[in-house]
């Protein structure tokens, strides 16, 4: 079993108020982003049942911003395609920003676990940013929370790859 680490910079939000997360997201300084996407950002209108996926590259790391529920169907299929493309391109270092992911079902978890293993086999990793309290609860319930390194913001997650 690989040695997994939960970053000390991220205090797992047991049942933190989501409004607090929203305020923090709004004030977050994204720094000097250079949105050179390896794969075209998916510009679907955000509806209740759709997952918006946007990908940016920073410091050899693919930062994937997700908005919406990550559940079986087009959402999981879309993220699977995004991650397959990244791995096929040799991009094994990924950050998934889950701050605006309202729900992760078992299909979404299966996808994350599968691609985490694939990335690690290739010398990379998939790190999570700001999963909300419900996502954390779900990850804990099925026992996979400790498989992932979790960070408070994209900057910290990206910088951890250099450590």
């Amino acid at each position, binding site marked *: *079993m690989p040695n997994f680490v939960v970053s000390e910079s991220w205090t797992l939000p047991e*049942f933190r108020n989501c409004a607090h997360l929203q305020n923090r997201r709004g004030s977050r300084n994204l720094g000097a982003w250079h949105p050179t996407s390896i794969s075209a950002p998916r510009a679907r209108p955000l509806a*209740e*049942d759709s997952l918006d996926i946007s990908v940016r590259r920073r410091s050899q790391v693919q930062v994937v911003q997700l908005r919406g*529920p990550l*559940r*079986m*169907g*087009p959402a999981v299929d879309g993220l699977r395609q995004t991650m397959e493309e990244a791995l096929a391109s040799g991009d094994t270092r990924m950050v998934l920003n889950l701050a605006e992911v309202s*729900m992760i*079902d*078992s*299909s979404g*978890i*299966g*996808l994350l*676990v*599968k691609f985490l*293993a694939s990335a690690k086999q290739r010398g990379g990793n998939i790190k999570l940013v700001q999963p909300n309290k*419900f996502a954390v609860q*779900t990850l804990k*319930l*099925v*026992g*996979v929370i400790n*498989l992932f390194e979790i960070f408070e913001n994209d900057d910290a997650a990206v910088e951890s790859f250099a450590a």
Partner: protein
Amino acid sequence: MSVDNSGGPENSPLSELLDRNMPANSEAIAEVVDAISETLTRLEVPEQKRFEVALAVQEALANAVVHGCGNDPSKQVRCRVNTDPRGRIVITVTDPGPGFKVDRLPDPHQNENLHADHGRGVYLIRQLMDEVHFENDGNEIKMWKY
């Protein structure tokens, strides 16, 4: 949260909140789950409970679509949401499939299953809901949230 497959609450009259038939494809699940969430919001069910019910329904419908119907959109999955006289939310998902052996499901916490990309749905349902029963050889799941 208890898991009891040996018996259930005695039958009592139910108030119907929702009764939907949906085609067995994954794209149809979201609409039903979201309709249930909206219904529970109108009933002022607390957010935590709404989330747990919504996720459990998501999992139950996904299982019905994939395992009960083989992703065949010509088949129908039925989802009913009721409340009983005690105010408990009762959700029933029925599919036309052959059922399955409930006692042969993997434990996702076992080391050999931890990295699996599937096999967590029923386990999640049992963790999220207060009571879960499989009926008709497994092609109907009935779940209670107190």
